């Protein structure tokens, strides 16, 4: 094997690599190769915003942005996420301030138990970034990978419409 093919860790079972999360480089040491990005964010990097529930990509509560794409962090092998830009719910607002999406979830009542909320917040940010004025069908489709067992979704959809309206009026 040539020596110039990039590898994510030393050739041993305890992986060392670095991840760029919310603009900061984090060193990951002594990790297992099978760890998901979700696990590494929560248990090694102290970023518990992304939530773990199904761990099979069905619930969307672990949604993060990797290289401008919304993905389930439970299905990303963390050691394969080197050299990517990772954005989590913690990195959306400056210095921990609420974003307009988070404020709208509060004002419209889109939060009940709150477990699914970080995944929804990331998915909504991603939607409005790529489609600032989505139709109702587009909102529903873009959130079809996020499951909420409390709200019945109506107030979440309302929060998305509220932010889209606010951003249009402010632009």
């Amino acid at each position, binding site marked *: *094997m*040539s020596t110039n*093919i*990039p*590898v*994510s*860790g*030393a*050739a*041993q*079972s305890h*992986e060392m690599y670095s991840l760029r999360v919310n603009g900061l480089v984090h060193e990951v040491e002594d990790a297992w*190769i*099978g760890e*998901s990005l979700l696990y590494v964010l929560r248990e090694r990097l102290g970023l518990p915003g992304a939530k773990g529930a199904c*761990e*099979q*990509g*069905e619930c*969307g509560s672990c*949604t993060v942005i990797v290289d401008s*794409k*919304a*993905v*389930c962090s*439970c*299905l*990303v*092998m963390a*050691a*394969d996420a*080197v*050299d990517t830009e990772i954005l989590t719910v913690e990195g959306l607002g400056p210095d921990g301030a609420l974003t307009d999406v988070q404020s709208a979830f509060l004002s419209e009542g889109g939060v009940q138990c709150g477990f699914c909320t970080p995944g929804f917040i990331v*998915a909504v940010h991603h939607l409005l970034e790529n489609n600032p004025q989505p139709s109702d069908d587009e909102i529903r*489709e*873009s959130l*079809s*990978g*996020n499951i909420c067992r409390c709200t019945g979704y109506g107030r979440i959809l309302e929060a998305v419409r509220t932010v889209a309206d606010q951003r249009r009026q402010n632009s």
Partner: protein
Amino acid sequence: MPVLIPRNVDELVEVFQANPQAKLLAGGTDYMVEVNLHGRKPETMISLRRVKELTEWSVRTNQSRITIGAGVPYADMEHGEIARLVPALAQAARTVGSPQIRAAGTLGGNLGTCSPAGDSLPVLAALGATIHVIGPDGNRDIEFADFMVGVKKNSLQPAEFVHSVSLPLVEGWQGYAKVGTRNAMVISTASACLVRDSDEGFVAIALGSVGPTIIRAHAAESWLMKSTSLRAGSQLAPSIAQEFGRRVAQESRPIDDHRSTADYRRHAIGVLAQRLLTRSFS
């Protein structure tokens, strides 16, 4: 052992030959579920995510074919040029998981896993796709019918990988339909792709989730081509569509499992076949 991250096809060939026992990782949407929930212990992994050539697609107009790289995600097939050229593939792509899954999952990953429920696979079977693979002995082309050989089994040899898939661009109608317990985030209970070449008067239908492999209903296809005209401008009698559905269902080989029963699947696949054929005339 580490994750090896080749940046181009030459590096991938080299690193796979040096580590033939390594597991290839595409979008991770199947493999990481195995790791998270089913005790799979990864050792050496080769990541395909950054192999540039695998993420490309191109059209050769003189040969009327499209070639789609193994690393192209479903999200890129849902809309745009690929969707315009191969509408059935776009329809199948839109039924895969959720936006998060479609951003990660790839055509090559579907072929690597080779599940009978793989949503792109009936489309590849109905269109008669050619799978381009690269291995230690160079390149070879495998027809889809010879590629998938069993439940989650393909005919790739050690250290071979899927480079791309070549599909003919067909004049006429093509569509994909799927039955599951809901619209989003569902593995198919039964699925089918129908391609009707209205220039040649030819039809092909391929069935998913109703047998150990994707099944082409060759007998039903032949019967239909003898029983009615499929050329542009012709009409379809409802009784023909119904009989086509019945014959397609006869060629399925479904089983009872945790997702459904053989009886329901046999019924559903007949309905899907009838519905797709009827749509092709509307």
